[in-house]
């Protein structure tokens, strides 16, 4: 690389840094967003404790009798077979993070890469093929698709994850494709061609980083969608198979609710509502802070 292009490169990096600093400043000025982030961090610590074995380890133990009320030993009471609802709810928090993070990260990576390829080669057969794939997957209703995947993977614990990732990358893919079509015609991409960079180099080093604002927001949306979908799928019996999740707790609680015992239902619902609400607030604030029209 010659001296000129390295100077230009450094300038581009500086510019990018200053934009991120602006985004951060704007985000920190948004009180709802910061509160959302704080709440998400609290949930994260709860999940971290489960992974490290600090708490929630006794979620499957039969430590009490049926439907005990709230007490010092069982903070949220016990369920129909005497398991501690608090431990189960905390353990389910870590499950929610596992599902959310796995799905959000993989769906965003796939959506980003495929979207970038479709956009970069817009008009060619690669783009046509990817668009066709997106339309096909969009045409299949989500719950039906998950069921079909669960069916074909015949009881694999990751059928739900696979199905969610296959569905959730599409939104990201379409947005990134649109953005890349815009970026593709910018001068700095022509400059990158001119100094002889390969197309793959251009896509991964010069185009994808400039869609990071879309990727971040889409990842946060995918996280929330995954957690919400998990609850419904687990309830339907095509979600989480091993372990404990909020969806399984709610499924369990439907029998209890009819008998007038609400602890299990309320614990799972409120914890889930809190995390989803916090994440929605966080995601909204991110979107506001990164709206390019507002940053410029």
């Amino acid at each position, binding site marked *: 690389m010659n001296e000129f292009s390295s100077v230009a490169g450094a300038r581009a990096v500086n510019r990018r840094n200053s934009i991120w600093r*602006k985004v951060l*400043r*704007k985000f920190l*000025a948004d009180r709802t967003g910061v509160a959302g982030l704080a709440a998400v961090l609290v949930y994260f610590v709860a999940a971290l404790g489960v992974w490290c074995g600090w708490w929630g380890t006794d979620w499957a133990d039969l430590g009490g009798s049926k439907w005990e009320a709230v007490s010092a030993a069982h903070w949220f009471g016990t369920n129909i077979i005497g398991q501690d609802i608090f431990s189960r709810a905390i353990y389910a928090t870590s499950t929610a993070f596992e599902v959310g993070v796995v799905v959000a990260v993989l769906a965003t990576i796939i959506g980003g890469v495929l979207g970038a390829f479709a956009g970069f080669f817009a008009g060619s057969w690669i783009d046509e093929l990817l668009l066709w794939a997106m339309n096909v997957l969009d045409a299949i209703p989500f719950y039906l698709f998950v069921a079909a995947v669960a069916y074909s993977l015949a009881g694999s614990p990751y059928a739900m994850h696979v199905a969610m990732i296959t569905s959730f990358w599409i939104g990201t893919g379409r947005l990134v494709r649109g953005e890349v079509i815009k970026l593709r015609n910018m001068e700095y991409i022509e400059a990158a061609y001119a100094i002889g960079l390969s197309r793959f180099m251009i896509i991964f080093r010069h185009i994808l980083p400039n869609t990071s604002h879309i990727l971040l927001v889409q990842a946060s949306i995918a996280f929330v969608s995954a957690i919400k979908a998990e609850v419904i799928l687990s309830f339907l019996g095509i979600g989480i198979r091993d372990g404990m999740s909020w969806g399984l707790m709610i499924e369990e609680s439907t029998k209890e609710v009819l008998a007038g015992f609400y602890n299990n239902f309320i614990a799972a619902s409120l914890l889930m509502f809190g995390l989803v609400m916090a994440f929605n607030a966080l995601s909204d604030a991110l979107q506001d802070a990164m709206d390019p029209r*507002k940053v410029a």
Partner: protein
Amino acid sequence: MNAADAPAPLLRVKDLTVEFRTMDGIVRAVDAVSFDIWPNETVGLVGESGCGKTVTGLSLLRLIPSPPGQIINGSIELEGLDLLSLDAGDMEKRRGSEIAMIFQEPMTSLNPVFTIGSQITEVLRRHRQLSQRQARELAASLLAKVSIPDAGRRLDDYPHQLSGGMRQRVMIAMALSCNPKLLVADEPTTALDVTTQAQVLDQMRELQNEFRMAVLLVTHDLGVVAETCQRALVMYCGSIVEAGKTEQLFSSPRHPYTAGLLASIPRIRAERIAELPVIPGRVPDPGNLPAGCRFAGRCSHVQSRCHQERPTLRSVNGNAVACHYPLGADI
């Protein structure tokens, strides 16, 4: 009609100050701007993009997007009535009928899903007691006035079916429809090609005389100003730095900025020069303006006083200039 013959100015703007609240703090886009416009006169408001000329134009109709923008000081008197003192409903009625504005983007300035006929008649019927049929006939005659061929049939066209020049003519027809006393035209020809530009400008001039209205032409194009305006105001960083009769302003600019702008116009017949002169430096950040003269950082005649004390408009050999050391002045 000569400006001096009229007893009173049509529009008198005094100390107009507009601020925008942004992430980086409060930005003063227009700073204590004062000027008059006389009946039937064409005045050019010139400057680089971002100098506050469009904001000034929008302020006259109280169309500043608020938030974040706000007129914080000054008065805008149209025939002696301060527009800033009117309530929102009252102001609404005067837009279009007494003071109208047309914009740069003929592509997007018309509503894409309504026919141009319905858009013109909507304005007509808003300000005048007309039946649908009368309004339609009037709209057709207005389109004919702005030289749109086959005007009656064109009424049923949608904006996307017209060329850029035609769309701008439709805008002008709309502006004329209620016979306003003042038309603010914000870069009305910038988006058009040169031939169309000339036709539209000619047309505007003719119609201005016929309808006896005054025009404030907001533009960055000095050529357009020279051709069409009797007087010109030069804006820099939110303030007027020089004002005067167009001829005099162009032949003997007093402010170094005006001189710089004029020198940077390419001339076809000029002797070959190695490079087109440009004004060095950049416009200062509007959130962080220098204390003294705002042009000081780019001025080739700068002296130490310029950095400390902000010059105000004063009369120098017929022009009004905001400069401590005006060019060619005998001081």
